[in-house]
Every structure is written in C-alpha cells, then in structure tokens.
C-alpha cells in the first residue's frame, strides 16, 4: 500500500495547505509590491506636514481638512460627476446597441468576432493621439463646422463643438465605449437563444423580450461596464485638460497641479479622498447587482 505511506515530516494536509500558499504567493507578492505598498505610502504622506520646500514626517489632519473644506474640491467633483454621468449614459446606449447588434443580429459567429475586433482597432494608437484627432474635426475651422457652413445650415461656426463639455464627453465616449461593449457582449453571448423563442412562443412582443429577458440577463455586464467607465472618467486628468481647452480641471488634474508645486501631502490626501469616494460608488453599484453571483451561477 505505497499510497498510504506518509512522507516523513509534513502531514498530507499540511503539504496541501503549503501548496495552496505557494500557488497564491506570486500574485500576492505582485499585489503587495504594486498596490499595497504604494497605497500605504500615499496614505502615510497624506498625513504629513509640509511647507513650501519640504515634506515633514509629522502627523496632521490638516491636508484632509484643506481638501474637504475647499470649494474647489466640491466643484471639481460636481464637474466630474456630471461628465461621468453624461459619458455613462452615452457609452451605455452605444455599447448596449453595438453589443446587441454583434450578438443578436450578426448571423455568423466569425463575422461577429471580426466586427468585435474592429471595435478594438482604435486602441492600436495611443489615447493621446485618439483624443487629439478630434481637434481638426470639431475645431472652429474644423471639418464639421466647414461642412455645416458649406451646406448652408449654419452661418457662424458652432462654438460648443470644441473646448467644451461636449468635446470632453465626445472624447470620453470614444475612449471608453469599448469598456462597456466588452462585458455586455460577454453577458449577451451567454444568453441561450432558445429563450427568445420561448418568449416569442409566449406571445411576447420585442420590447417585452428586451425588458423582461435580455435586460435582466445582461445586468451583470451593464454593471461591470458602468464600473469601468465611471472609474475611468473619475480618474482622468488629461482629456479634461486638453479637450476643454484648459478651462476645466478634473479632480486628478488638481492633484497633478499640487504635485508639480511639490504639495505632495495635499495631493496624497486628495488621492485618498478620491479613492474612498470611488470605492463607495463601486460598492453602491455592486449592492444593486450581485455581480459575483451573476458571474458564478452558470447559465
């Protein structure tokens, strides 16, 4: 009975536990070095004192006080929330439609995957280039204004096209819609097609099938996509700066300004606040839909 002979030293249970630890270790190390340690540093710095020239390692809540009591913080968050909400609605509508088209209307699976990959083509260039490429299109003398003026629809160039909330949201939508498409596409692909026939058999109209079958079954995809889009917008600092023509600032660009004037503790406190708010937002979204349950329960 060779199988029952125990190796000296470790009991089978111990060695099994050791194996699990060994398997978890690499990822744990990565998370420790690249997430936990930097976060700890940020949190530590956020309670340090500073003056114009240096950071002083002494405990204080003044940085938080200054961040939370500033009108600038409030207005920045309101701006960003407004932009996030607009972007979310646009990406959700576009992303849902595109995903629905790819999954339900393209008959050939191969063509659907091909079109899906086509959606990712813009990502072969950098964010900055994709964003800047809007400038000649939306500008005062841009393609759109010139075309509209040439067609006689307008006499004066439209001012709101560039360096406005409009252009910022357009850029966000361009950059982030794919993050909405992917999880919704995934959720839709997992819907058993015979459910549509069952709904049709029951006499359901199209809108009833969408509302009572497709929507509930793609909830997890919508939630995941929403989390991506909202956190990406809230964490942005560059798009707002460029596409608003420097008139708007974001929460993160304010931090960037702090850092460039060496106000590290203030920036760190601001980062901590943003992180808490984002975490709270994600937690609130997840309370609405149990994504884990949706993902684990195999359909």
């Amino acid at each position, binding site marked *: 009975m060779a199988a029952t002979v125990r190796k000296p030293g470790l009991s089978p249970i111990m060695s099994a536990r050791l194996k699990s630890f060994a398997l978890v270790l690499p990822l744990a190390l990565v998370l420790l070095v690249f997430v936990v340690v930097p976060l700890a540093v940020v949190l530590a710095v956020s309670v340090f004192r500073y003056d114009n020239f240096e950071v002083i390692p002494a405990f204080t809540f003044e940085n938080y006080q200054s961040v939370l009591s500033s009108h600038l913080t409030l207005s920045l968050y309101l701006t960003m929330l407004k932009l996030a909400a607009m972007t979310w609605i646009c990406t959700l509508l576009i992303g849902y439609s595109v995903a629905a088209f790819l999954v339900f209307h393209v008959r050939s699976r191969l063509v659907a995957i091909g079109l899906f990959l086509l959606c990712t083509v813009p990502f072969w260039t950098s964010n900055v280039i994709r964003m800047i490429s809007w400038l000649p299109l939306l500008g005062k003398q841009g393609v759109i204004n010139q075309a509209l003026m040439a067609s006689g629809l307008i006499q004066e160039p439209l001012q709101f096209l560039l360096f406005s909330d409009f252009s910022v949201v357009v850029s966000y939508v361009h950059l982030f819609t794919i993050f909405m498409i992917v999880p919704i596409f995934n959720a839709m692909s997992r819907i*058993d097609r*015979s*459910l549509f*026939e*069952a*709904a*049709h*058999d*029951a*006499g*359901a*109209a199209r809108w*009833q099938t969408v509302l*009572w*079958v497709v929507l*509930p*079954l793609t909830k997890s995809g919508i939630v995941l996509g929403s989390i991506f889009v909202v956190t990406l917008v809230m964490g942005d600092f560059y798009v707002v700066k460029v596409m608003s023509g420097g008139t708007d600032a974001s929460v993160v660009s304010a931090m960037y300004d702090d850092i460039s004037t060496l106000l590290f503790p203030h920036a760190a406190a601001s980062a901590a606040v943003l992180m808490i708010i984002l975490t709270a937002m994600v937690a609130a979204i997840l309370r609405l839909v149990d994504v884990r349950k949706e993902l684990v*329960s*195999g*359909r």
Partner: protein
Amino acid sequence: MDIETLVPMNASTATGRGAVELAGIVKRYADGTLAVDGINLRIASGTYCCLLGPSGCGKTTMLRMIAGHETPSDGEILIDGGNVVGLSPRERGTAMMFQSYALFPHLNVRDNVAFTLRVRGIGKAERYREADRVIEQVQLTELAQRLPAQLSGGQQQRVALARAIITRPRVLLLDEPLSALDEFLRLQMRSELRELQRQLGITFIHVTHTQLEAVAVADQVVVMDRGHVVQSDPARTVYAEPRSAYVARFMGGQNVLAGKLESVADGLATLRDAAGRGFALRVGGAVRATGQRLQFSVRRDHVRIAKLAGATVPPLNAVVGLVRAVEYQGTFVKVTLTLDAAAAEDDPFVAYVEEGDYFAGPIGIADRAVAWWEMDEMHALAAE
C-alpha cells in the same frame, strides 16, 4: 381580462380543438437543403401524435413550422380549419415545450410559468393564481420560489410543461421532451404526459427518435424519413404492419426478407430468394408482375426456432442459418442468426424466443438452426 378569452376561439371550438392539417408543406433552407419535402398530414383534434424518425429526417423542422418558429417555403398549415402560416404562436393557439426547456434563468418557477400571462397584460394577482393552479397540476407547489438552476432535470421539465399549458393551447408541441432525462424519469414522465393529454383533451404533437416511446404514448405515429412521411397510422399498425422495409427496420421487432415473385394467384404469392428459399404469403388485391422483387416482414416474436440437427426444414417460409449471438432479455431470449448464403448487406435474422421455450431446448452460439413461421405472420411491404 379573463383567461378564457386569451385563447383564440373559432367556430370549430365546439366540435373539438386542435385539429392539425398539413398540406404540401415544403421547407427549403437558404443553402438549398430540403428539410421537409411535400408533407401532407392530418392529425385529428385531441390526438396524441408522435413524429418519429432518425435525426435529420425533418421532424423537428416540421414541429417548429407548426409552432410558428419557422416558416414553410410552401404549403399550408391548418389548425381547426384555418390557415395559420404567418401567424404568431399566440395567434395560432399553440404552445411549445423546448428540448432544452428554455426556462428563464433569472425567474423563479412561478414567474416562469406566469410569463405568458404577464406578456398578455394579466394582473399580478390573477396570473399568480393561475400559475399556482398549473404548478399544482404538475406537482411543483413546494418549489414555486426556486430558480431553474436549483431544480433537477425532471423538475425543470415540469416547469416547462406548466408554462406551456397555462394558456390552455389548442395544440401542445413537444420537442424531444424526454431526451434529457434518465431512463427511470423518462418512463415516469412518459406516462404523465399521456395522462396530462387525456386530462386536457388537446392535441399533443411529440417529436422523438425513440420507437418505444412513440409506440407507448401515441395514438398516431408518424414515421418520417428524409423529409417525407413514410407512414402515419395508429401505433399498433405501425408496429405490426409497417408499410415499407424502412419502417419495419426503424420500428424494430421485425425481420425483413425479400424474394422474386414466382406466381400470384387468388392473392397468394410465392417468392424465391437468391439462396433458393421459398416463401408464400398473402399480398391482397394489388396487381404484381412475376419476376418483381417483393419484400416482406416477419415479427421476431412470432418466429419458431430449433436446432437443425434432427429437425425437418419446412419447404416454405423457413430459413436456416448459423447462430451468431444469444442474448437473454428477461422475458425472452434474442437469438441472432446469420442466414446461409446471406449477402454482406443483408440484415441478420432475429428470433425472440419465449424464455421457457428457449430453455426447454437451448440453442448455442455456432449451432446451425432452422427458423420457421406461419403464413399469417408475414406482411408484404411496399417498394421504397
């Protein structure tokens, strides 16, 4: 809205509901394949009908066309006298039970069953009352709050059944309803389906590829082959009097033999096959030319068999062969012979010998044996 008004009614309602008639139905797919090739079929109201055939014979396509999930390329489908081609399942008054059940995974049993009423705008209280009634009918009351994923295959099937019958359809269409169940449940559900059909008094059309299932439940068995109906008859007729060699082989329980017609007189035909064996059988009034090849079937359980040594071989309606396999089947023993001078493509000859008879004079593998039968057990088959 009252539940009764949900079901489309017409003049024929009084005389019975769910009479289905197919006239010249053709289904051609875009790639040119012909799934259903000119089917004419009549199913009386209140019939339990089985569409039977191997996979790819077009039976599921036919069911889906009756259900309104596929449109025939040509022909008419009449339900209670009215052409329903182009109508929605709801307008047809049909309901379908899907092979995979197609239960909504995010809805519990009650909401799944009540879904049809929900889309018809029935209020919550009334649709739940109605759903609970049907759920009770399929004995799932305790599980009404569960999600489909928390149910066993048999329970899921009951939910699908409840969902299909809640609107009291004229015709219930079942696509291989028992194929996903284990053997025990299959037998149980089979009799429950039959019982339910009797209670509801509506037409059931049940697609299956299992002969025994069809014979056990159906009033009318429709055997299909490559897009055609090859026989549509009561279960016993299909089993005992198959129209063609295809039906005989597919239904099982038959030996198919053939020979050249030597003479026909007074409906009595004599045949001789390539190995020189002579057969005589009644062929009825059909005019047949001598020299024509004629196939006939002999019930396996109506064949007698004995060791060749010491037995006399009757001059007619007997075959001699080598025993190739002996299988004990409980109530009978299956003895398989390879006939003398059999061609490679010929079916082996099988006799079902009653258990007591077999053990009174057992025949072993590699014995030579003679099998014979009465002329009344023979059944002439139509040319294919």
